[in-house]
Structure formats: structure tokens, C-alpha cells
């Protein structure tokens, strides 16, 4: 992001406020144009035009406005929107939140440049997703299957191991796909502890060779976070649609992204929506999340796994809520399961994969998959209700079936969900599921057709 030689310089800044710089008298400026600012000491910053009027221009500065002044700062307009240089060399590399190399291995030589905002995919060109991605985690693969081209967020709470789950998924999908699939990982506002964790985990497992990392640290400029997911998605689209690769994009943490957006909005004195977030939060999030999918007649796919922290575990928080409305389901981490020492603490009840049906079944996973999932769900839901009930009235009044369901719940949590770091194939997950269903009398298996019960059910244990 250097200022091109031909760009015009303006030294007409009138106001500086938070991440925003206001200036006068630059008539040729385009809306959304990329800007370079050079302060009096020669330090460069980059920015983008947020608003143009006849006599004032608003620029947001990605690195923050620290050190800028009215007189000494020169503003260069590039005449073009913000772009990212892309090439195959990006695999195995680590970049910062604004796309500069962070690993000391030097700049890449771009093959193409693309605007980072991307363009909406024409709905008639989309291919309906049809293939599942094996993450090796039973409570995802069997219960809420991830499908290529899907966007499936993980909703987590402070202190829950979302990052560990994310890294585990990244590692396992690369391995399970025999390195057919690559991961683009974007970290927004992560701590240096997390940074070390991510970097080391990727390096240790060898996953780094099949990954591109964009990492914006918590002490990096906040506003840069507006760019980070867009850089990651532009990279993903390049690998998917130019190079025909299947790409999994992990974005963590989108709450930090939304907070950066709120910061700019409030500096612009816009009318705030819920909890101070701008009214266009939905649209803005959608322009990121919708950059997932498959194109008809082309190889390659972009799948998204954004991670969003629920402040105070509140699922109705605007960022969580709007994410849920845009994405195709959600995986929810549970504090209760985490306290019981269960890892990964994925709560199947509120989790959902909307595209699951497209990716499973005969020829994909197994014919009984849908019904087994349905049955596990129903029993687990019923069992959790029973647990609540027995907490009040005790287990004395319970019938035989109820006791069996409670035992099922216990085993489901301890064995099925609590799988640790050991990956399971979908066949292994299904086998374990049928083993658990054998706790239950046949007549209670209402959601599975007889033919599957005959084939897989091993009879109610004593």
C-alpha cells in the first residue's frame, strides 16, 4: 500500500477526530478511494474515503490518526479503491491485519490485484452446496454437518476454548482432506498469547504450509480490523475461484470487527442503532459473510467459520443476533459442558447447520445419518428436560425408560461430545451413536425407520 508516484498530495486537513480525518478541497476524489497519509516525520498511513462532499472529505485512517497534524500531513489520493495483491506464494505466509508480511519473509509478488470489498455473486451463478467437510469432530460432523460453501459461525463465551476448537478444525480439515483443502485464517484483535498459540499450532502440525494467516493483534490499530476479514476473504476467493481450491476461512473474533465498525460510526456521529452499533451493521456483516459459496461449473469453494464471542453469554447481543440471521446455522459452545471438563464443549441443542441435509445421506455420509441425528437430538433434549425435573423432584418417581434416557445423556456428553483432540471419521461417529442408542428401548426410537434399527441397533442393554 504505497502511494503511487502520480498521486496528488493535499495538505488541507481541517479536523482530526478519532480514526477520522476531515479535509477540504479535493474535487477529484472518488467515494471509497484508497488514501495514503504521510505525516511530518515521513511516517506513512493508509486510509479510505468514507464520504465526499463539495467542500469536505472524510477519510478513515486504518492505522489510527496518532501523530497526524493539520499542517504537516500530506494526503495522497490513489485514484483507486483499496486492493490486495494476490499470488500462490501466499500459502504458508503470515500477514498483519492490513496485509503486510508479519513473518519477515519479505513482500510477495502479486499475480493479480483485487478490490478487497469484492462483488456480490450473482445468485443465478451460485451452485447449491452439496458436499460435506469432515472436521473430525462428532458433534459437528454428525450433529451439525459443515458443508462446502456454507457459512457456519461458532458462538462462544469469554474463557471458552473457541480458539482451540478453531485450530483443531483447521488442522483436521487439512489432514482429513489430504491437503486438498486450504485454510485462510484471520485474527482480529487477538492477544499476543493467542497469536503465539495460533502461530505455533499451525507450524507444529504442519498446517501452515496449507494456510494463509492474517493476524491483527489487540494492540494493533483498531481500524485495521475493518480490513482484515476483507483481506482474508479476497485471498480465499482468489484461491477458490482462480485456483480451484476448497478454502475454509476462519474469522476470529467478529465481535472485535463489529466494535471497530462501531468506533468509526460514533466518530462520524451517526445515529446509533442497538447498543451503539451503526444501523448498517447487518448489511456490513452480510457483505463479509455472504462471500462464501460455490460457483456453478467451477472448481473451488469458500466456506466460512467465523467465531463470535457472546458478551456475557448473551445470544441476543446485536452482533451475535445479526450474525445468526445471515449465516447458515451456528455452533454454540456451552459453559456448562466446559465446566464439566467436556472438550470440545459444543452444545448440540441450540446448534444448527441449515445446509446439513445437502451434504449428508447415501453416497455422501450414510443413509441413516439424518435420522440418527434427529433421534440423538430428540433424546438429548428430552433427557435434559428430565435432568431438570429430577433436580426438583428426585429420581425416585422415574420409570425404566426415563432412567435409560438419563444414562444416555450421561454417555452422550462423556463419550460422544467429549472426544478431546482425537479426530473421528464420520463412520466412527455413527458407530458410537448407535452404541449410545442401544441404551434405549426400541419403541422409543421413533425418529428412525425400522430398516435402520434392524441394521444397526444392537438391542437395549440391561
Amino acid at each position, binding site marked *: 500500500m504505497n502511494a503511487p508516484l502520480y498521486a496528488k498530495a493535499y495538505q488541507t486537513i481541517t479536523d482530526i477526530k478519532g480514526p477520522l480525518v476531515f479535509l477540504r478541497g479535493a*474535487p477529484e476524489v*472518488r*467515494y471509497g478511494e484508497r488514501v495514503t497519509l504521510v505525516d511530518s516525520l515521513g511516517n506513512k498511513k493508509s486510509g479510505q474515503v468514507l*464520504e*465526499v*462532499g*463539495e467542500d469536505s472529505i472524510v477519510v478513515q485512517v486504518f492505522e489510527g490518526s496518532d501523530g497526524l497534524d493539520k499542517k504537516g500531513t500530506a494526503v495522497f489520493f490513489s485514484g483507486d479503491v483499496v486492493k490486495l495483491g494476490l499470488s500462490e506464494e501466499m500459502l504458508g505466509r503470515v500477514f498483519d491485519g492490513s496485509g503486510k508480511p508479519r513473518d519477515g519473509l519479505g513482500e510477495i509478488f502479486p499475480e493479480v490485484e483485487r*478490490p478487497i470489498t*469484492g*462483488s*456480490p*455473486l*450473482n*445468485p*443465478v*451463478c*451460485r*451452485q*447449491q452446496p452439496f458436499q460435506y467437510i469432515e472436521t473430525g469432530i462428532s458433534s459437528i460432523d454428525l450433529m451439525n454437518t459443515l458443508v462446502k*460453501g*456454507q457459512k457456519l459461525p461458532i458462538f462462544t463465551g469469554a474463557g471458552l476454548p473457541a480458539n482451540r476448537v478453531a485450530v483443531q478444525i483447521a488442522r483436521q480439515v487439512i489432514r482429513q482432506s489430504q491437503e486438498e483443502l486450504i485454510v485462510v485464517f484471520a485474527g482480529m484483535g487477538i492477544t499476543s498469547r493467542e497469536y503465539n498459540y495460533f502461530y505455533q499450532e499451525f507450524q507444529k502440525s504442519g498446517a501452515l504450509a496449507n494456510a494463509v494467516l492474517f493476524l491483527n493483534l489487540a494492540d494493533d490499530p483498531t481500524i485495521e480490523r475493518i480490513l482484515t476479514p476483507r483481506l482474508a476473504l479476497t485471498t480465499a476467493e482468489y484461491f477458490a*475461484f482462480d485456483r480451484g481450491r476448497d478454502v475454509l476461512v476462519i474469522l476470529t473474533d467478529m465481535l472485535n470487527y463489529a466494535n471497530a465498525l462501531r468506533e468509526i460510526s460514533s466518530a462520524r456521529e*451517526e445515529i*446509533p*442503532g*442497538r447498543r451503539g452499533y451503526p*444501523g*448498517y451493521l*447487518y*448489511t456490513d456483516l*452480510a*457483505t463479509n459473510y*455472504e462471500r462464501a*459459496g460455490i*460457483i456453478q461449473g*467451477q472448481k473451488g469453494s469458500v466456506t466460512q467459520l467465523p467465531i463470535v464471542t457472546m458478551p456475557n453469554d448473551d445470544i*441476543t447481543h*446485536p452482533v451475535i*443476533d*445479526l450474525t*445468526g*440471521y*445471515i449465516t*447458515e446455522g*451456528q455452533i454454540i459452545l456451552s459453559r456448562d459442558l466446559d465446566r464439566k471438563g467436556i472438550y470440545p464443549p459444543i452444545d448440540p*441443542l*441450540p446448534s*444448527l447447520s441449515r*445446509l446439513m*441435509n445437502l451434504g449428508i445421506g447415501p453416497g455422501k455420509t450414510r443413509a441413516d445419518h*439424518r435420522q440418527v441425528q*434427529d433421534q440423538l*437430538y*430428540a433424546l438429548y*433434549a428430552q433427557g435434559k428436560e428430565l435432568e431438570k*425435573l429430577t433436580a426438583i*423432584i428426585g429420581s425416585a*418417581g422415574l420409570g425404566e425408560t426415563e432412567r435409560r434416557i438419563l444414562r444416555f445423556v450421561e454417555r452422550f456428553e462423556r463419550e460422544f461430545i467429549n472426544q478431546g483432540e482425537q479426530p473421528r471419521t464420520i463412520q466412527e461417529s455413527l458407530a458410537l451413536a448407535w452404541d449410545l442408542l442401544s441404551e434405549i428401548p426400541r*419403541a422409543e426410537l*421413533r425418529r428412525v425407520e425400522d430398516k435402520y434399527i434392524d441394521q444397526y441397533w444392537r438391542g437395549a442393554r440391561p
Partner: protein
Amino acid sequence: MIVGRITRISGPVVTARGMEGIKIRDMVRVGELGLVGEVIEVKGDLVSIQVYEETDGLRVGEPVQSEGRPFLAELGPGLLGTIYDGIQRPLEVIRDQTGVFLARGASGDPLNRSKRWHFVPTAQIGDHVAYGDVVGWVQETPAITHKIMVPEGIRGRIVAIAEGDYTVDEPIAELDTGQKLYMKQLWPIRRPRPSAQKIAPALPLITGQRIFDVFFPVPKGGSAIVPGPFGSGKTVTQQALAKWSDADIVVYIGCGERGNEMTEVLTEFPRLEDPRTGQPLMRRTVLIANTSNMPVAARETSIYMGITIAEYYRDMGYDVALMADSTSRWAEALREISGRLEEMPGEEGYPPYLASRIAEFYERAGRVICLGSPHREGSVTVIGAVSPPGGDFSEPVTQNSLRIAGAFWGLDARLAYSRHFPAINWLTSYSLYLDVLQDWYIRHLGADFLAMRRELLEILQKEDELKKIVQLVGRESLSEPDKLLLDIARTIRDDFLRQNAFHEIDAFCPLKKQYYMMQAILTFYKACQRLVGTVPYDELAKLPEWEQLSKMRYVPNEQIGSFFPKFIQELSTLSKEAVR
């Protein structure tokens, strides 16, 4: 022509100067790329324009040109089976122009200009015709005859009309006034198309979905809202209705929702068969797709575009069902534009005119006697999805829609968590249309249909009360009849109200089958009630009939007549001996 200059650009809102004489809601072309926009505010010598495409790269000083007319929908044969964006650009044509990603400034004629349609006149030379009169028809699809109607503002005696193959731009008739009639006509999308008379709806929209047809029906010409938190199945519900309801025409608006969902419709509808005509469902469907990442201002028009097309087919005498998914995204687009205009916000930042805009939209639903001759009756049924933030129904979009719509289908996150779909809460949902539909139900399904409906609802109501007791004291302390009631209620919920939208047979349930299923459950309930005093309930709970009841929704449609009467007969004769 009025030409001005851009003075300010802020997201989808552009301000221009020097457009003296321009009217509110006039369509304009913005900048060198000629982006489509609409005038939404005039303030001194400045006008504000909402632009239906991304404004990145625009500059102050670029020209803004008035088109001298409001935003018009193009209506005529060829709408069916087409997918448009919010400003009626055909997305398939746009793909051929700009590739897989949408580029700005693309344009395409909504109706194919070169395709020839075979026009058959029904009016003759010498006939006097006026607005709304049918002069002929075109076979648009094997099932749909597209009536060619006289547009507004034209009246006179026909001096020339002939059968033949025409494009939508070629005149098919001429009047003595010199005016010509075409198969294509234009209509300003924000103005409701008039009718001779609005009449009370009296026929149900049969959806094949038990919870709607039995519990909360909506008539043809009625309106319903489907609010629900994310993951509760709004879209699956909307799509099930679009697939299975017995409307002649379906207009499906994907307003600010997911791209993959539109793809789902595009993939499935051409494959699925309309049960009544045997034609692919796509051939009765018009799709309007403005996904969440497409320009926000066009989201606002997509709703009006959809309803204008719906009214146009209504005017031919068809029953049209319109699904808008989601009206909340439309309201948010209003809010975003309003914010950019720096208007004084109302509740939750929405503009103060939100309520009136919602009301105007839902009021375009209805059953009408169409203008002109011959006599035609048509209807537009509006089913709007609402996405309340945090699933909180007290928010402005839900509340304002609730005041207008006649049926409320409240989706419930807890039902969705327990995988009870459609996750419509039977205790909080309602339909205000039962009175007007009563006659139809009695005539077509017998007097006991509504009585059985009431019984089912009473059982579920009672269950809700009993559950509270169970929470406190446990199930064992209930009386025997109450235990029976709880299990019957579970059967109603699990085996009647739950419906699998993805199951080959269960996805669509004919009314007759719905009737039999209710009858079977209630017959069994009565038989058990008879026995419960003499046989311990735990014995009754083990009867194999419970499982049979749970499988009856999978009885194939062609076996309904042979299976159910026998099954119900068996249930009614349940005896003490059978239990032992």
C-alpha cells in the same frame, strides 16, 4: 431533460444540485456509469437520491440525469420462471453480460425483446375497450394463460387486431384514437394497481401444512406474518408455502437474505412438480432476489416490485401468493436510508413512517373483482417473514406488521431447539380468518372438521397447564386420565403438528389426510378414555397403536382412502381384551 451534478456521496445516498423541476420518486441515472437511482428528498436546490447500486468510485461533479418518470415495472408475458434483482434486472441476462460476480451499471430488459409469443385475440374489431378489459391471451406456460389487458389511460374502439406471433414491443391492436396496444405494459411500483372492488376473502389458501390448514389458516387474499428468531425456520416455512400452496402464481422475494437460499429455490423449483398442474414449480414462480450483500437501496424496491407483479397476475383473475423474506431487512433498508438523510429517528432508529409503509404494503393484499370485462376475480395473499432482533416480538417491525396482518404464525426458538418443525407455537399463534372460512370448511370437509380442530387445541391448552404441575410434583402424581391426556397431546405435537419438509410424502399433506389424521387421534383418545377407568394407564401406554399413530403421516397419498377408514374403525373398537 434535467441534468444535475453530484455534490455529496455517502454510501447509497447521493446528493445532487441543479435539478430544478424534478419530482419526488423520479428515476435518475447517477454518474458516468449511469447507476440507477430514485429521488427521495428535495431540499432547497439539493435533491437526495437513493442509488440502487454500489457508489464506490463516484466523484463529486459527475452528472445526474433525470429519466422524467417514476420507477416502473415492466409487465407482460415472460415474467414467469424468471429471476430478477430488486430493480427488475433479469439476473440470467446480467450473468451473460458481467460474469459470475455482479458488476455495476449492468442493464437488461426485464422482458425478452426478441421472443415471439402467439397472441390470440378475444376482442374484435369494433369493440369498445377501456382500462382493464381483456383483449386476448398468450399461453405463457402450459398451465398459465396470460391475459393481455388494456393499460391505464387508454380507451377507444378497436380498428385492428389480429392473431399472430408478436414480440412484446410489437402492437397487437390499434384503436380509433390512434393508440396502440402492446403485450407489455408499465406500472409505477409504489402505486397499488386498482381494482373494481375489494371483496371479502372466503377460500382458504391450502398449503398442505397441517399447522396452517387446520390451526391457523389464511384465505386467498389474506395476509400472514411469520416472525421468528434465527434458526427457527422462517425460510423453510416460506419455501414450503411457496412449493405446496394451491396458488396459481407464486412471487417469492428474497429481500436481504442469503444467496444460498435463492440458489436453493433456483435448484429445487425447476425440479419439483406442481401437484395440481404437473408442471415444474418454477413455471408458476417469479423470483426477486436481492440478497443481503446486494445494494441496500434495491432491497427497498424489491418488495414493491414483487407486489406489483403479483397484482398484475391478480388482475388476470389468478390467485397469487407472495412470500417476502424478510420484511425486516426491508425495514432496515428504510432505516439505513433514513439515517443517511439525517431524518429524525423514531422507535429503535426506524423512521417514523415505518408503520404507514408496512400498512401500505400489507394492504395491497386482498381478493378483488378485477377492472374491466369479462368478469374476473383474483387475489394476492401476502406472507411476510419478520426477523425480530433477539427474537423479541415487541420490536417495531413485528408490532407494526401484527396490527395489519390477519394471521400470526409465531415461530418459537424452543420448538426449533427440540427439532419440532414447523416451529410454530400453537398457543401464541392465531388466525383472524376462521369466521370467513367457516362456511368453506363445513361445505368441503364436514361440520366436524372445525369441532375436531377445537378439541385438539383444547387438549394442547390443557397439556400446557398440566406440564406446569408436572414440573412441580412429577408425572406420577397425576390422575390416570391426565396421564392419558399428556400422551395424546404428545402425539398431536409430534405426529400431527410436526411435519417433515424434506420427506417425500410428509412434505405435502392433502386436506383429506389431515382430516383423517385428526380423526384417528381423537378416536383413539376416546377409546382410551373409555378404558382408562378399568385398565391401568401404564397398560394403555404400551399399546402398539401409539406407534401406528406416529407413522400415519407417512401413508402415501394414494392409500389415504383405503388405509384410514379401516385404521380408524380399528381404533374405535379398541377393547379391554385387546389391551390384555
